[in-house]
């Protein structure tokens, strides 16, 4: 034993381990501040999201309901023949309907003056629907039939409370006295509100007929475009990335290709539109406004995204898998197709779906190939017609509606955004599920 006592090194007086010194406090404060910035950033982002979501829902939900005029009437054979004999058959049907409705309302003894002109102002363009019904069901001529037909957009806005009596300026579209008739008809149950299936299944209409407009045809247009994008960009993109990643020699040339693919991914989409116009329409003479051309243009846009994500997921497969396969005597190709590719599949699929979702929301390139405008008018009747007949796409349809003067179309545009978002969400959810399901960790 020695008498040397070991004294612990003295801490400065008054400094306990429990109390932080000034420097530590400063560092901790910096950390707290940083966390606060992070939370604020998230809150700002969330509030934007909430604002966006509420404004989309508030503006878009009304597009799914339609104010309708409910009426039962009989079209006689003579009236049918007379209407079919005119040039503007649809408006002849509207006239017949207006006179029937006027009679019916007068007969019900409502205490308002009802004349044909007023009824015409309150109704949407119903002639097309009527003609279609009687063309398809000729046996209904002479029979009483029940109809729910769209009311004029201003009537709808009045019932939604967006148009008040003081705002109405007497004119061709609506007069103040018409609102008394609307009130009376609502009380009598002739004007009601109904879910608008036509908005989901219908086609685009002229600017004077917002009540009849639907997004259905452009949904089909988007669908065919996505079909082209999927069946072209997935095989081409995957083949290109497998070659580049697994087989290609690493030299200046492949480096150059790699850099250019990354550059392509950053090219603004409108550039692909100009390219599509020049190559597919002016040079290859493909039809204008066709989903096929739209799909080809979007394929160009989606390819780099798919190549990049595929290469990333191929890289993520550990080399041990390849080595083991080669070790038991598999050829290079067998090792890639039997072992590497299946393991990389979830990543490839996720990348593809995200690329497709991006392409689905793209409008700019479609402007140049004639898919924006009054296009989505008819449903295709098969694969070839779906690819080649003029059609629009959802974002293009939304853009077109937003530019029209009647406010009812603005509402339709918001409603279209909801439909588009539902599609995008479904696609993203599928991507997440695929990733969760097939993801392998090492």
């Amino acid at each position, binding site marked *: 034993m020695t008498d040397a006592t070991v004294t612990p090194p003295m801490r400065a007086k008054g400094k306990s381990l429990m109390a932080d010194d000034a420097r530590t406090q400063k560092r901790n404060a910096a950390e707290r501040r940083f966390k606060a910035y992070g939370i604020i950033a998230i809150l700002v982002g969330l509030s934007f999201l909430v604002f966006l979501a509420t404004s989309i829902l508030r503006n878009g939900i009304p597009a799914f309901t339609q104010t309708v005029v409910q009426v039962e009437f009989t079209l006689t054979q003579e009236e049918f023949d007379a209407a079919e004999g005119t040039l503007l058959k649809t408006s002849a049907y509207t006239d017949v309907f207006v006179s029937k409705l006027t009679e019916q309302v007068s007969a019900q003894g409502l205490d308002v003056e009802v004349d044909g002109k007023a009824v015409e102002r309150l109704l949407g363009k119903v002639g097309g629907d009527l003609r279609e019904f009687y063309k398809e069901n000729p046996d209904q001529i002479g029979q009483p039939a029940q109809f729910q037909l769209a009311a004029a957009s201003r009537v709808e806005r009045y019932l939604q409370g967006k148009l008040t009596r003081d705002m109405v300026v007497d004119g061709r579209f609506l007069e103040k006295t018409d609102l008394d008739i609307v009130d009376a008809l609502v009380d009598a149950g002739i004007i009601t509100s109904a879910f608008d299936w036509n908005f989901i299944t219908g086609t685009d209409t002229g*600017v004077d007929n917002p009540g009849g407009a639907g997004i259905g045809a452009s949904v089909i247009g988007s669908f065919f475009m996505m079909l082209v994008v999927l069946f072209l960009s997935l095989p081409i993109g995957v083949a290109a990335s497998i070659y580049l990643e697994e087989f290609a020699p690493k030299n200046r040339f492949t480096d150059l290709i790699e850099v250019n693919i990354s550059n392509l991914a950053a090219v603004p989409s409108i550039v692909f539109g100009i390219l599509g116009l020049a190559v597919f329409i002016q040079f290859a003479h493909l039809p*204008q406004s066709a989903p096929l051309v739209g799909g080809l243009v979007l394929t160009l846009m989606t390819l780099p995204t798919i190549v990049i994500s595929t290469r990333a997921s191929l890289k993520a497969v550990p080399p041990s898998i390849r080595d083991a396969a080669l070790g038991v005597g598999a050829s290079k190709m067998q090792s890639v197709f039997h072992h590497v590719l299946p393991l990389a599949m979830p990543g490839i699929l996720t990348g593809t779906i995200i690329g497709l979702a991006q392409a689905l929301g793209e409008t700019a390139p479609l402007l140049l190939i004639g898919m924006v405008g*009054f296009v989505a008018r008819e449903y295709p009747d098969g694969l070839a017609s779906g690819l080649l007949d*003029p059609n629009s796409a959802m974002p293009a349809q939304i853009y077109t509606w937003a530019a029209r003067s009647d406010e009812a179309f603005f509402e339709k545009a918001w409603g279209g955004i909801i439909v588009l978002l539902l599609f995008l969400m479904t696609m993203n959810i599928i991507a997440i599920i695929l990733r969760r399901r097939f993801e392998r960790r090492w």
Partner: protein
Amino acid sequence: MSSIKMTASVLAITAVSATAAMARDNVQVAGSSTVLPYASIVAEVFGDNTDFPAPVVESGGSSAGLKRFCEGVGENTIDVANASRAIREAEVAACAENGVTDIIEVRIGYDGIVFASQIGGPEFTAFEPADIFNALAPKVLVDGALVDNPHTKWSDFNADLPDADILAFIPGTKHGTREVFEEKVIAVGCEETGAMAAMIEAGMSEDDAEDACLAVRGDGLSVDIDGDYTETLARIDANPNGIGVFGLAFYENNTDKLKVATMSGVAPSTETISTGEYPVSRPLYFYIKKAHIGVIPGLKEYAQFFVADEVAGPDGPLAAYGLVSDPELAETQAMIDAEDTM
């Protein structure tokens, strides 16, 4: 692999489509965004009432539409160009260069150009062309001298106008509406205020002075709108002091947001425009390639349908939307029947 088969079949369809493209069965229309609403109404009704498919109608402005129209003859070019002004000599020449020689000009009716402002904004209720010129020209006449436009408020040059900052949203140069605005308002104002005479006195030739009279100030108080009227409306919504240039039909669809100003004391309406009292109106046209008639099914029928009395006449759906119908519609109908070119 099945995806390879799928790719092959898609490629096969692509190849087939190259031949299918030779038989386009719908009419392709592009051009003026002022004519677009009318064309879309006609396209819908045409598709509903005939056995032809509905034509495809694109927008983009008169000049852009006529440029595409003049690209050449063939199935991959448009058949009809909508325009809110008459075709220019230079455009006819450009057309001829590309082989588009026989062009049928169809006048569908008239449209008024109105000046409107926010319904709750300052009292912009009466304008003269001179007021618009004084507000928007780059050089104006002040006390007998031609100076760079010093006005920043409407009341600076006309005490009857509100004491509000000058801010005008006018159609961009690719719109046909711009040309009408320049010729019927700015140029008239230029003459009325005597600025044109002053320019000629200062040594300008008459042609140069006329051109100089069409210019608009570039210091930000006059804003070119290259989009549709909806964009102008959005700007007006955000700027109580803003004055916007609209088509009559667009204004009539938005009377709850806009108030309209009279021009030279006349309020714009279909009646005052058809009588010619309201000064700022212009004819609307569309142009057809004669070479496409008989090749594109439904092209001639579309043109005939468009100008039929039931459609473009005073009781038709176009007039109901805001088109001022052409009193000489019968001549236009006869011209289309005979396929008379320009």
